[in-house]
């Protein structure tokens, strides 16, 4: 069986006293294969954490069905739980009075692990995250980044089949984020029967880690594809930014006419050098050669050129209609 997780028509409604019911999920469906890092991307209140909570048996759905490794999360949760781990970011979870080592050992016992196996894995992963020397430090003495690394180790020590990462790098510094991302990537590569479901605010993180991404907003999946596919679907044209020593409006009209229909050229100026800067949206990659020739024909000398790649942020913008940050600010639900 290749499907680690199957989510079918999942809905979740929160009934709150005195207010209208809140539809956190509205018929969400997707599946995740073994060996895959699957991203759920969306702003606050989009429904991604609700989805993870249901998949990890913390929350019951209003309707729909989720299976993890073939087990129904609602009915067969006792079979699901030994196979999964959840790591949430942006929190300071853990028993502050315990040392790092004690904390990790204790959770390994909740999974029935043999102590010698648990200790070996704890040592292995603490070394990987660079925290072996801090193993005897109490949890309440750790920085946010260190606590999050311990949280990650806690999730990995039990060797789950499915790892749920809910904003794992939220609130941690760049260095710790890089370490966490590298570990997650290597962990999935290590064994093909593992899979990761990642929710994140960070587009670059999803782009870097995920083999597939679902963009979710207001409880609906808007897209579900590989990041490269999402970006490609955004716009099939090639985009370039070209700075030249001189170019005026008449010359631009001339070049535009020579390039033919479908190729758009926008003239501006470089913010630093104030040189004329051309943003070119070309129908075909090969059109760039014709454009450079046309520029040379107008007596313009090339100073700088770069190809503009679409980002997941652009894909999000197209689907949601707002930039990620704008959507974050507008969202009333945390």
């Amino acid at each position, binding site marked *: 069986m290749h499907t680690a997780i199957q989510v079918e028509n999942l809905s979740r409604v*929160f009934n709150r006293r005195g207010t209208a019911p809140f539809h956190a999920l509205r018929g969400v469906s997707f599946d995740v294969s073994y060996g895959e890092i699957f991203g759920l991307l969306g702003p606050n209140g989009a429904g991604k954490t609700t989805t993870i*909570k249901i998949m*990890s*048996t*913390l*929350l*019951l759905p209003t309707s729909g069905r989720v299976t993890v490794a073939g087990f129904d999360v609602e009915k067969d949760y*006792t079979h699901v*739980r*030994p196979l*999964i781990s*959840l790591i*949430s970011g942006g*929190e*300071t*979870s*853990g*028993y*502050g*009075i*315990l040392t790092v080592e*004690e904390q990790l050992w*204790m*959770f390994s*016992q*909740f*999974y*029935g*692990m043999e102590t010698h196996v648990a200790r070996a894995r704890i040592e292995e992963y603490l070394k990987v995250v660079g925290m072996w020397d801090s193993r005897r430090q109490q949890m309440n003495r750790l920085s946010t980044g260190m606590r999050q690394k311990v949280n990650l180790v*806690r999730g990995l020590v039990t060797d789950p089949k499915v790892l749920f990462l809910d904003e794992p790098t939220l609130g941690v510094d760049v260095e710790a984020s890089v370490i966490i991302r590298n570990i997650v990537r290597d962990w999935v590569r290590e064994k093909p029967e593992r899979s990761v479901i990642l929710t994140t605010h960070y587009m670059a993180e999803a782009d870097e880690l995920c083999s597939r991404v679902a963009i979710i907003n207001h409880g609906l999946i808007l897209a579900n594809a590989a990041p490269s596919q999402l970006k490609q679907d955004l716009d099939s044209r090639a985009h370039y930014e070209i700075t030249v020593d001189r170019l005026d409006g008449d010359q631009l009209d001339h070049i535009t006419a020579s390039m033919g229909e479908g190729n758009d050229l926008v003239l501006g100026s470089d913010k630093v050098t104030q040189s004329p800067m051309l943003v070119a949206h070309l129908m075909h990659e090969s059109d760039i050669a014709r454009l450079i020739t046309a520029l040379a024909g107008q007596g313009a000398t090339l100073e700088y050129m770069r190809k503009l790649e679409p980002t997941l942020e652009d894909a999000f913008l197209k689907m949601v209609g707002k930039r990620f940050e704008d959507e974050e600010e507008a969202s009333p639900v945390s």
Partner: protein
Amino acid sequence: MKGFLASMYIGLQIESNWTKKWVWLLYLAAYPIGSFLAVIILYGVFGQKTGLLPYALYGTIFYYSLSMVFFDMAFSVHDDREHYQTLKYIFLSSTSYRTYLCGRAATRYLIALAGIIINLCWLIPVLRLPFHPNWGYLIAGAILGYLVAAGLGLAVASVFLLTIKLDVDVVDALFGGLFVLSGALFPPTAFPAVFAKIAEFVPMSPFIELMRRAISGKILTSFLSDMSTFQLLGRVALSAAVLFALGWVLVFFGSRQAQRKGYIDVTTAF
């Protein structure tokens, strides 16, 4: 079993790891004094003539062993959920949450018993309390007492799984109400007949009376005096089984309802 022992371990760490070991041992001995000091003053100083000091003191001490457990279990739900933010991780581990709670209850019960034993070592000779222990009944009673305490604790925990804010008043009211009704402080035979009858069926009453008789070797008042100590043991066993089963079932339904409501990992400004 590993999960149960790990729960006991975390319970012990939470209880003891906040200070040096010797300070904690001192605390262990001193903490229960607060619960029975008033009884000593009430019956040992002002109410000497009543002769109820042994009854009230033993009753209060053994009530303390139960109340500490269910008080602690109510708080553990909120502490794990809000303060430590570990409830969700425990909840979705291979160990059932009920097993975890029972482990926490076991530690709390053992700590309470340790405090009681330390204090009885000086209370019995100093206050000349009757002491003719039947060790068999004492040990059996102590084991069954754990089931009574854990059952009550599970029941309380099931309620607190479904409350977002920790309502200390509710626990206090329960704690106080059962203290009076269980006959820990004074014989319920002093109540009007209806209340006295109710007191007989308060689940803690037979346990407390069994422990009184087991340690003092006497029937100290007429409360439950129509029952032999062996019958009392049977009654405690029955109430322990019923309470434990009830608590076990209630936590199952409480957990499912908390899952439904999304309360397992809810945090507030508590």
